[in-house]
């Protein structure tokens, strides 16, 4: 069978012959390669590889401790700052008497011009005479304090000058088993 009779064999023979390159092609290709930037140099197209490349950070133990302490301070500052911002008491309820309060901030008021000190004691403060002192409004003998309270029913009384027990004239009376009158406060929740 001749080449003319077998065209595929002729094509194969042609392809097997070495290609003739133009003179200087190899030099031009190598020159282009030399002009490329070295690996790792930041370019517009190479920024992605810069972010993915691992870093090596060298720290002395002392600087490492300092950095850890700084991070801890930062975390604590964010944490406690957030707590402080979120722990504001409910707006105060500027009511004259506590018995109609439906919120959680409750104002206790007693008019006692002769008193030198007034405190409120009750189920909300372990009946402690030192826990919730009232503040005297300037000039008129009105004593007041605002206490945040959860919904519930609270028995309480005022103590004037550390010794004189007084019920709240603005509030309902409550049952008492110990010989000193109580008042009662109901804080609603719905």
């Amino acid at each position, binding site marked *: 069978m001749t080449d003319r009779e077998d065209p595929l064999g002729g094509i194969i023979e042609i392809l097997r012959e070495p290609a003739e390159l133009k003179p200087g092609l190899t030099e031009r290709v190598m020159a282009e390669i030399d002009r490329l930037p070295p690996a790792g140099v930041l370019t517009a197209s190479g920024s992605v590889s810069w972010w993915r490349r691992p870093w090596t950070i060298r720290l002395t133990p002392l600087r490492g401790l300092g950095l850890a302490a700084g991070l801890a301070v930062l975390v604590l500052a964010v944490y406690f700052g957030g707590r402080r911002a979120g722990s504001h008491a409910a707006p105060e309820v500027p009511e004259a008497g506590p018995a109609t309060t439906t919120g959680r901030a409750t104002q206790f008021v007693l008019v006692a011009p002769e008193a030198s000190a007034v405190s409120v004691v009750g189920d909300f403060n372990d009946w402690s005479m030192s826990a919730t002192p009232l503040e005297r409004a300037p000039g008129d003998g009105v004593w007041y304090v605002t206490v945040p309270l959860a919904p*519930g029913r609270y028995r309480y009384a005022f103590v004037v000058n550390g010794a004189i027990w007084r019920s709240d004239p603005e509030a309902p009376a409550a049952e008492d088993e110990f010989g000193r009158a109580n008042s009662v406060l109901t804080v609603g929740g719905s």
Partner: protein
Amino acid sequence: MSAKRFGFILVLALLAAPTVARGQEPRLVGRIPDAARARIDSILAAARVRGLPIEPLVDRALEGSAKGAPPAAIIAAVTRLRDELVVVRAAFGETASTAELTAGTSALRAGASAEALARLRKQRPGQPLTVAAAVMADLVAAGVPADTAVGAVLALAHDADDADYLAFRRNVQRDIVLGASPAAALAVRIRFASEAADAPSNIPTTGQSPTPKRKP
């Protein structure tokens, strides 16, 4: 938290640990004589076992201490309150909150029956009972006969929220201060509340159970 505050809390915790470990209520230490405190601690321990809240019991003991009551009177008051909590919890159910139970004991002491409290629970399913029970007690304290006060609170049970109950009680008390008899003041206000809810007034004056109203 500052190191100073942390240290303070740590010291308090260390001081309180032995007391707690012995089953003693730390708030009673130094405020109740030792002999009475031991008895009260045993009452508190038994209450814990029964699932009762101890806060109201501790508060009652501290109230007696603050008022200078003798130890026997403090123990008696705590014991009585413990018994009332048992009754109220049976009426309000196992899931009743401490605030509900406390208010319920006040209503019970004011004259509400355990059956009336159970009806209140039934008529306000899923709603808090604290204010409703408290208003029962407050109305009685204002001079309203107990059965009338209980009937009024039950009559409002379907429609009223806490604010409604508080407003109702405030209005009754205002009318009393202005000279109305407690029963008359309550009758007027309950009629007004019923008309506002577009339902006939069915407030009982003898303690019978009122017919439940329906929301309009």
